[in-house]
C-alpha cells in the first residue's frame, strides 16, 4: 500500500482526495452513505457574508459527459455556516476543512475571511474569485489579474489560515492569473472552476438554465483542467489543488502527474454519492499496480524533460 499522505499549507491530509466546493454541501449529507472521515479534507459549499438564495430554477442542465449548473452561491451566510453547518459536520469529520468564500466586493471577502478563518475546524480558505454564476461579484476578480491580486492581498492581511485562490478557466492566460495571486501572497491555488456554457430548449429557443449561462463541469472538461494545471504548476512555486472532471483513481494520478499536489472531486459526487470513497480505494490499487510507493513522488512528473 502506497503512502497517500500529503502535506499542504494548513492541511495535513491522510490522502490527496477532497470533495470540491458546491458538490458536497457542508459534508454531513454524505454521512448517509459512508464515513466521511476517510476524506483528505472537505471544501465547504461557497459561503458569503450574507445569506443568499441564489438563482431562479432551473439551475441544472446536461451535456455530453458533463453538466451545467448555475446555483448562484446559495448559502445561509457566514455566521450560520460557522455556528450551525460546521457544528453539524463536527461529529463526523475530525480533520481540517477548507472554507470556500465568495463575495460581491473586496470588503465582503475580507469580512467573511476574517470571521471564518477563526473557526477551529477550518484549516485553510479557498477564495472563490471564479464563480461564473453570480452577476455582481466573483468572476470579475477572477478575470483581471490586478483585481485578483488585490482581493488576495487584502484577504491575506486578515486571514488566520493559509489562503488558496480558486482560478477560473474562462480567461485568455491562466498563468498570468496564477502568477498575480502568487505574488499577492496566496499560499496555494485550486483550479479549475467551471467553463461557462449554455444549452437551449429546441421548442422555445430559450436557454434551459434560468440564469442563461451556467458553469460546465464533469469528465468532458478533464483534458482542459489537465492542460491548465500543467501550465500553472510549472510557472508557480506554490502548490496547486487540481480539479475538473476527475472520476476515478487513474484520473487522480494523471492530475498529479500534471502538477497537482492534491485533487478535488466535483460532479462525480452528484452522480455517485460514494465517488470519493471509491476513488480513494481505486487510487491505492492503481498506485500499487504502478509500483509507486509514495504518491508525492508523482507530483509534477510531467514537468521533467
Amino acid at each position, binding site marked *: 500500500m502506497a503512502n497517500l499522505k500529503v502535506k499542504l499549507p494548513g492541511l495535513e491530509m491522510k490522502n490527496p482526495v477532497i470533495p470540491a466546493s458546491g458538490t458536497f*454541501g457542508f459534508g454531513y449529507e454524505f454521512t448517509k452513505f459512508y464515513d466521511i472521515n476517510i476524506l483528505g479534507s472537505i471544501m465547504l459549499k461557497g459561503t458569503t457574508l450574507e445569506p443568499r*438564495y441564489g438563482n431562479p430554477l*432551473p439551475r441544472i*442542465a446536461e451535456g455530453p459527459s458533463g453538466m451545467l449548473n448555475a446555483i448562484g452561491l446559495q448559502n445561509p451566510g457566514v455566521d450560520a455556516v460557522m455556528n450551525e453547518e460546521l457544528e453539524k459536520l463536527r461529529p463526523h469529520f475530525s480533520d481540517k476543512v477548507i472554507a470556500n468564500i465568495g463575495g460581491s466586493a473586496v470588503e465582503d471577502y475580507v469580512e467573511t475571511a476574517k470571521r471564518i478563518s477563526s473557526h477551529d475546524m477550518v484549516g485553510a480558505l479557498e477564495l472563490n474569485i471564479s464563480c461564473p454564476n453570480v452577476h455582481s461579484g466573483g468572476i470579475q476578480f477572477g478575470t483581471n489579474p490586478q483585481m485578483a491580486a488585490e482581493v488576495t492581498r487584502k484577504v491575506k492581511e486578515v486571514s488566520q489560515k493559509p489562503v488558496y485562490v480558486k482560478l477560473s478557466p474562462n480567461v485568455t492566460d491562466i498563468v498570468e492569473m496564477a502568477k498575480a495571486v502568487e505574488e499577492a501572497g496566496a499560499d496555494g491555488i485550486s483550479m479549475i472552476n467551471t467553463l461557462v456554457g449554455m444549452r437551449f430548449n429546441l421548442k422555445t429557443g430559450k436557454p434551459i438554465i434560468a440564469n442563461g449561462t451556467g458553469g460546465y463541469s464533469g469528465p468532458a472538461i478533464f483534458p482542459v483542467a489537465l492542460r491548465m494545471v500543467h501550465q500553472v504548476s510549472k510557472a508557480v512555486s506554490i502548490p496547486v489543488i487540481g480539479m475538473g472532471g476527475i472520476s476515478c483513481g487513474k484520473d487522480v494520478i494523471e492530475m498529479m502527474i500534471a502538477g497537482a499536489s492534491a485533487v478535488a472531486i466535483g460532479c462525480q459526487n452528484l452522480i455517485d454519492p460514494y465517488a470519493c470513497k471509491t476513488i480513494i480505494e481505486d487510487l491505492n490499487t492503481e498506485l500499487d499496480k504502478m509500483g509507486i510507493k509514495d504518491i508525492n513522488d508523482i507530483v509534477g512528473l510531467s514537468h521533467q524533460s
Partner: protein
Amino acid sequence: MANFQGLMEITKIDNLADDVYEMTLKGDGAKYISQSGQFINIKINDSLQPYLRRPMSISDYDENTIVIVFKVVGLGTEILKNKAIGDKLDCLIGLGNGFTVKKGKALLIGGGLGTPPLYNLGKKLKAQGVEVTTVLGFGSKKDIFYEDKFKEFGDVYIATMDGSVGIKGTVIDVIQQLNLTFENYYTCGPEPMLDALALNYPENGQLSFEARMGCGFGACMGCSCKVKTKPYKRICVEGPILLSDEVIVNG
C-alpha cells in the same frame, strides 16, 4: 431517512398510454422507501451519456418491489424504455420527504405524469378508512392512464385539455364545476397546475413538485425553491412535497 444505492432488476415494462411506460423493479433497495411520494434517482446506463441520473416518482412499492411510470421525453427516457427484462439499474432509493397521510375526506389531484405517486398514497388512505375522490387531468384521450386503478379508492373524474374525455379544461375546472368537497387534498403535476391549486386552495394541501436535479440527495442545491416558512427548501430533501400554505406561487 437512510438512503440506499444499489441495483434493481427490471421485471416488467408495460406501455400505458402514448409514450407512457410503467416499469417494475425488484430488489432489496425497495426496503428503503418509507412513504408514498418519495422518489428514486436512476443511472440510466454505465456510460457517461446521459451523464446525470433521472429522478422518477414511485407509483407503488412493497418490501421488494418498486413501480415507476415515465413518459419518453428525451435521451434518458428513450434509453430506459428500450431496456430488457432482467436488466439492472443503479438506483438511489429513499429520497425525499413523502406525503403525510391525514384523516379527513381526501381529494387526490393528478396532472399527467404527476398522477403515479398518488396511487400508493390512495392505497394508504383507503387502508386507514379515509374517503377518497380522485381528479385526473390529461392533455387528450391518448394520454390517459391509471383511471381504473384509482377507481379502487372511489369516484374518479377526468379532465382533458381538448375535451376528448370528461370535462374540457383543467383539474380546477372539474373541482369547481362538480363542487367537489374535501378536507385534505394531495396533488402532483406540472408547476402551473400546482401554483393554481395553491392559489385557489391555500389550506390543507400537500403538493408534490418536480425540478431538474443535479444529485437528488441534497448536495448540489440545484433544486432549491423559496418557501414562506424558510429561506428555501431543497425539492430533493425537504420536498418534493410542500404544504399549500408555504408554497410561494410562481416562486
